[in-house]
Every structure is written in C-alpha cells, then in structure tokens.
C-alpha cells in the first residue's frame, strides 16, 4: 500500500527576477514500512523533497498525498497538526531543546500528540534510561541523536523523516545510530525516509531514490539491503 504519493510536484523559489526550480515535476510513490534513502549531491533538491513531505513547506504545483490525505493544500494550522501527528523528524544537528532534560525533550511531544508513547520506555529502548535527568549539553553527539530518535518515535508517527542523521557524527557512532534507527523502525513497522549524500547509507535501504537538479534520476529497489554492521563505513 502506498503511504506517500508525489504527483507532478514542482517547487519554485523566486528571488527578484531569478527563479530557482528546486523540484521539477517530480512523481513517485513509497510503500509503507520501507526504509527509503533519498540520495543526491548538494543542491539536488533532496532537502526540498523532505521539507515538502514533512509539511515544512508546500509545493508550487502538484499533489502530495500521505496515507491518502492531500497535504499540498493544507493551511498553516493544518500542516502543524499534520506534523504533530503523522511525521517524526530526526535532524542532522539533533535540535534538542537545551533547557529541557532528556526525558522532558521526549515527553514534550505529549503536549501536541494525543497518541504519544511513554517517553521513559522509549528512552530505555534507545539505551538512555540512565540519562533521563541529564541535559542535552551533558551528552555526547551520538547520545543526543538517540534522544532525537526517541523523540521522533515517541509521537508514534506513520513516517520518520531523517535529514542527514549521521552528518554530525563520526562513522562508528553514525553506524550505531543508524542501526538503532533501523531496528526500532522495523520493529514498529514505520516508514523511514532518510535524506543523505552518503552512498554507504544507501546500501542499507529498501528503496534508493537518486535526485539531481530537482528531478528524480532513478528509483531503485534493493531486494537484499545490508545491515549497518555489514556496511563498510
């Protein structure tokens, strides 16, 4: 069953007389429960694609459906509700709230998400049960990213969106984080969309979408993706 459908999606950015076509008539579908990697060089349009899918931005033209719901025409408030309920974000620089503890950063989502999961249980699952009362600044980068993953999963979303989730980590920590991300998502049947320029991560994906100059160059399904441990970092 298709959980994500992009139909002739175009996103233009205008600056004075200049016009930048960040996404140009893009169409594709993604099946639920898959691990999808969107791969491409800088400026290819992969972040724009993630932003549109995450409800951070709206397309100039075309239709985006998530779980059958058209999100391309939603108002600001409706998009906020969509982000609160349907998608979980994992950022390159973690984006934790520095003034909240580890537990509170995850518990935070219960303020906006009625189906939020128990923060403590999730943090124990990501191996941070002993750091509940720590502030983000007291954790390593890998630990902070694990809090970020726990926060994204605590919403119990349909889709996890990850923007260069290992970009700020060393390769060993990055591999551990990816293994955790993948393991937890697979266990709960979530769809994961990772945007990256790291070719190695693509080896772990069920589906690899290659983007260049705002267009989709290829969509490749991998029958036997590698595990994080199997990938040579």
């Amino acid at each position: 069953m298709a959980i994500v459908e992009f139909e002739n999606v175009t996103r233009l950015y205008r600056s004075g007389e200049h016009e930048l076509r960040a996404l140009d008539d893009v169409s594709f579908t993604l099946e639920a429960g898959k691990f999808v990697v969107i791969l491409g060089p800088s400026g290819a349009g992969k972040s724009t694609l993630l932003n549109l899918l995450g409800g951070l931005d709206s397309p100039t033209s075309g239709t985006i459906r998530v779980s059958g719901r058209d999100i391309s025409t939603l108002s600001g408030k409706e998009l906020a509700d969509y982000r609160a309920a349907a998608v979980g974000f994992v950022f390159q620089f973690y984006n934790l709230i520095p003034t909240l503890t580890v537990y509170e950063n995850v518990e935070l989502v219960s303020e906006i998400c009625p189906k939020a999961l128990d923060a403590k249980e999730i943090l124990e699952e990501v191996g941070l049960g002993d750091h509940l009362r720590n502030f983000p600044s007291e954790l390593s980068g890998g630990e902070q990213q694990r809090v970020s993953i726990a926060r994204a999963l605590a919403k119990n979303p349909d889709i996890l969106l990850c923007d260069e989730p290992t970009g700020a980590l060393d390769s060993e920590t990055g591999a551990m984080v990816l293994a955790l991300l993948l393991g937890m998502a697979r266990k709960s049947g979530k769809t994961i969309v990772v945007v990256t320029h790291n070719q190695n991560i693509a080896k772990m994906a069920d589906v690899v979408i290659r983007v260049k100059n705002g267009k989709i160059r290829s969509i490749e399904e991998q029958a036997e993706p590698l595990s994080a441990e199997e990938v040579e970092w």
Partner: protein
Amino acid sequence: MLLRKFFRTAWSYKAQVLSMVIMIMLGVGVFLGFNMEWYTIEQDTSRFFADTLYADYRIYSETGFTTEELEKIRAIPGVEAATRFLSVNLDLADDSGRSLALDVSENFTVSAFVVTSGAPYDEESGGIWLSDKFAEANGFALGDTLRLRYQGAEISGEVVGLIKSGEHMICLADANQVMPDYRTFGFAYISPKKLISALDFAFYPQINVRSSLTKEEVEKAVGEALGYTAMVVSKEEHAVYKEAQGEATEGKTMGSVLPVLFLVIAILTMVTTKHRIAVNEKLQIGTLKALGFHNGRILRHYAAYGFGIGLLGTALGVALGYWLCSLVMSEDGMMGTYFDMPDWSLWMPAFCPPLLAAIVALLTAVSWLSVREQLRGTAAEALRPYQPKKMKKSFFERGRGWERKRFAVKWNLRDIMRHKSRSAMTLLGVTGCMILLVGGLGMRDTMAGFLDMLDNDISNYTTKVNLVDGVDADAGIALSDELEGDWVYQSGISLDGDTVVLEVYDNARDHIRILDEKNRPIRMEDGGVYLCLRLKDRAAIGETITFSPYGSEEKYTAKVLGYHRSVMTESVAMTKACADSLGIPYGVSAVYTDRSAREIGSDARISGTQDQQQLMDSFRSFTSIMDSMVLILVLAAIVLGVVVLYNLGVLSYIERSRELATLKVLGFRDRKLGSLLISQNVWLSVLGVVVGLPAGVGVLQWLLMALAGEYELKLMLGPTTYCVSVLLTFGVSLAVGLLVARKSRKIDMVEALKGAE
C-alpha cells in the same frame, strides 16, 4: 569595504540599533533635563540676585531704624553695603481686591531692581516703578497713575518704569501663598523722597545688608553696634532665596533618583544588547580573522558600533535634555509662572560633559570587550559557532512539584535561568517602569491630598485678613471679634540656633484648624507647645524646648504636648492661653473670617485681604507644574518600558529562534509558540510589578522626606495610581509581548534548523 559592512550590519540589526539609540537618548535626555533644571535655577537666580543687589541679611526692628543706626551697621567691618528698607503690602485704592508690596530702598545700594522698560531709578523721582508682570496682568502701562491705600492715607503716582526685582523674584503676598498670581498681587518701588512726600514721615523697619560675613558674625556685630539683639534673617532664611534654593534642591533630589535609575537601565540594557549582538556576530568575526584581518582592526570595526550608537544617542539625548529643561525653565515654561526674572539661559552642570563622554567611552568599551571575547584563541576557534552555557539544574528544580510542572513552565523557567543577564535586564526594565509610574503618579496623589487637606481639613474660612506690622494684641483681637474670626500671631524665634516660626492661635471659632500627624484635627491644649513634624526630632512628647523671640533677650521654656502638620513653615504652635501663661508677648498677624473681602471695610489695622479661593488657586497652579513633570515621567516610563522590553524580547526571540523552529517542526502551532514567548514576559512583569510597587512607594517616601524641608507632605497613593501603574506596566509588557510573539508566525523552519547551535 569594512565601512560598507559597518552600515549593512547596522541595518541588519536596525531594531536593536534603533532601540539602543532611543534608550541612550532617553536615559541621557531625562538625566540631563532634570539635572539641568536645578543647575539652571541655581545659575539664573544667583545671577539675577547679584544684578539686583539682593540682600544677604535683613535686620528687623518693629519700631523702625534711624539713620544713625544705619550708619552703625554700615560701619561694621565686612559689611559692603546697607540700606534702610521698607516693604509693605498695600491694596490698590480702587477696591478691586488687588494688592502689591510697596518697597523703598533708601540708598538703593541693596535690594534694587532692573528696569525692563521706562525710566531708570531716580531717587528724586515721584514716580512708581511697577512690576512688569503685574502691569501686564492688570493692563497698566507707562504713564498710567497708580493709587495705593496705606493706613487710611493714599500713595499715588505715575508709573515711570516697569521692573523686575530679586526681592520679589517669587512674588508671594505671604507665607500661605505658594504661587504668584499677578492678577491679584505684585510689587512696586518708590523713592524715599516719594515716601516722605506721601506720608510726611519715613518708617523703615528693615536694614538690608550685603556682606560675606556669617550669620553668627553679623548677629554679634549688629548686637554690639545697636546695643540690643535685633532679629537677623539671612538670605538662606528669606522666603524668595529659600524658595529658589528649595526648587533647586527639589530638582537635585528628583534628579538624583529617577533620572539616574533611567540612565542606569538604559546603559545596562545597551550593555546586554551589545554583548548579545557580538555573540550573534561570532561567525562573521571569526571569518574576518580567518581572512587575515588583525584583531585590532576587527576590534576597531566592531567598537565603532558602540561608539557610533553611544555618540548618536548621547547627542540626541543632549538635545532632548535641553528641550525638557526648556519646558520647565523658560519664561513660557512651567517655572515661568513661578520665577519672575529676565534671563532664562539654560545651564548644564559641570559634571555632565565628562559624564556624557564617560557614557560614550563605556559603550565603546563594552563593544570592544564583547568582541574581544569572541576573538580569543586561534582563527579556527573564532570560527566555531558560539557555545551557549551548559545547563545546570536550578534551585527551582529542587522542589517536589517540579516534575509535574507543564512544559511551558519548565521551558521558560530554565530559559530565564540560562539567560540571567537578559532576564535581569527585562526585570529591571519593568521594575524601573513601575517605580517611575508609582513615583510620578504617587507624587501627584500626594500633592492632591495635600491640597485637599489644606482646602477641607485646615481652612474653614472665606477670607484671610492680613494685619499691618505692629498692631498690638488688643487691637488685633478686637478686629478679630468684629469679624467673628480666628486669629494667629506669627513671629520669628530662635530654636537651637535655627530660625523657626512661633505661631500663637486663637481658633475657638474653628475657622482655622490644627492637624495631627494623621491629618486629624486636634484641639490644642494650653499647657505646652506643638512642634511641626519637621521639628519632631528636636524633642519628644513630654520633653521641653527652649526658644528665644528675635529682638528679645528673653528665653522661654515650654513642654512639648504633641506634633502638628504645618503647611509651609517650620513652626512651633501654641494657644493664646499658653502664650499668656508663659508671658510671651504677641500681637495679631492675621484674622481668618467667613466675611467676604468686600464686606470688610477699610481699616488702618488691615494691610490686605486674601480670598481663600485665591489661595487655593495659587496652590493649584503650583501643582499643575508638578502634573506636567509627572506627565513627562509617565511618558518616559512608558517609552522606557516599551523600548527595553521590545529590545530584550527581540533578543530573546532571536536566541530562541532555533528552539522555536524545532517546536514548530514538531507540530506546535504559532499560537502556542506565541503564548510561550508572552508567558515569560508576563512572569517577569508580575515579578517586576511585585518588586516595583513597594520600590516605587519607597522611592516616593524617600523623595517626600528629601522634600520635607519645604513641605510636610503625607504620602498618599490612591487606588487609581495602583491600578493605572499596574495596568500600564502590564499593558506595555503584554503589548510588546504580542508584538514579539507575532514574529513566531514568520519563523522559517528550514532556515532555522540549518547549522548547529
């Protein structure tokens, strides 16, 4: 190229730059305005006193001085000039109720005047030199004839000159009038020759002296020269000089509290803002360093912002200060109705220019130090993004209920603790705003309460009848009985070396009342005296005081029975029976009656009459000056609140934009983000109000104590003042909070999430 960057960077921080310029302008302007006011009073009045040969000492004799006695005084070493002098309040002969003080300076070497139009002083002239303000208010012109009534006789003459005099720079009929009213009272001079030709005799109850001797030296020398103790009043004790000095002291007192608070808030807020901007500019600073710019050049570049903003703000502040001062100190300004003097030049105290330079230097140094902090270490270190302080658990979190607190509460409390200087500045801004509002509006309430007390609690008469000097007790009491009035005798006494007023009352008909400390009417007992509140520290109830009337060797000792609230004078009050039992000689100075001025006919014992309504009007016009000052303070408080809160609110927003963007991405609605921002403002405002309210009352109490030398004001704060102060402070805080919260709608989630914190 760096110059272009200078202007473009300034433009990118336009809200902060503008608010810093406004804050410095307001801080400097209000500080300078208030301090220029008292200094200008000191300078302009002292110049005017010098120009009109204002007397340093006045020697009084109820029986008058002879020419021989004058010569003895002139012969005292250290006396530069002396003249016999007469100043007597006379009614105009047209029964219009107008009166004026007629002065004669026998040899015109002391207590003279300056001519604004018409003929110069001529001791041979039979003309009258009239106050130009009285002439203007009453339609008199040069060449008109002025007729005055003096003890049944008439003095008339042609107005030959229009004048101003230091002796009447504050032209008041008596101690009960607080504001000049030239429609009803003025002054005039005639020559000694004219006095003799009109009355056939010359009576001079005063010798006015110019001398640099101390009061003790003059008293001793005069006693030795005349052979008896005469009442000597120094210029510091003379109403006009004392009032002018009082105004300057009052201005100095006001200038040393509220404007200083204003300036400190402005500077501290600017310091915080400059530091935060330097932090925001860290990457740019690092980039310039990495490109090869020397630290010195980068420091000069960024310090130029502090210098430029400080210089511009200070320059505008100086202009604002001059403008504010001119609102008060100009012929058409607030003091123009109080002081009558020819020159209204504005003066800046000597400490101000170095202080202003120090402010600019301080702001430049703050920029310099903030940037130097970001430049520390290698270029690579300078290029690293700013690392905010690590979070630590605050004392709030030690309580049991912390875990159960809502996210917004935790977030805001920790943000306040994390950004202590910013939060402290916001708190200081709100507190300052509250202090200014409570102080300003409270002063207005207090003055209104003072007027109300005077109008309703003390005064229960229609007309005050002033008696000529020298009327004995029997004649005065007889007049009082004729008019069915109460009477008072006022005379100078020496109490512990200070000149205070002895007041003997007979107020059996309840036309004039004596109030206690709590403004309740008291019936004075006959067994002792009542000290005014300003003399409270001289003796406790039950103790005794010893005093000596001027012109007498006698000393009297009396028991203190209580304290009373005196309107203007520092006084010791007693009943007629008490004065009789102590054997104190007294006369009658004034009678308070319910008869109207028109019903009271001409009488040799009467020097003039004053309608109670006129007296109250003069008080009201005095308080209208206070109202204008209060309005300036209230407006300044609101502007201060808006600028400080907006500036710090925007800084807070910028610093938290990444967190806000994260929350927005997570699905928080704009409304919720806005309420997060506003709630912190509201908390700090509540705290600011809680701190500012008692602090405002404390500052007001302090001001009233500092002003106690002039008036015995009882602190009064009406419910309206509390409500208006709290509502205005909250209103400002909420309005600014909403303004900042609106920005959360424009958060660019994508942009804000790029890069690491």
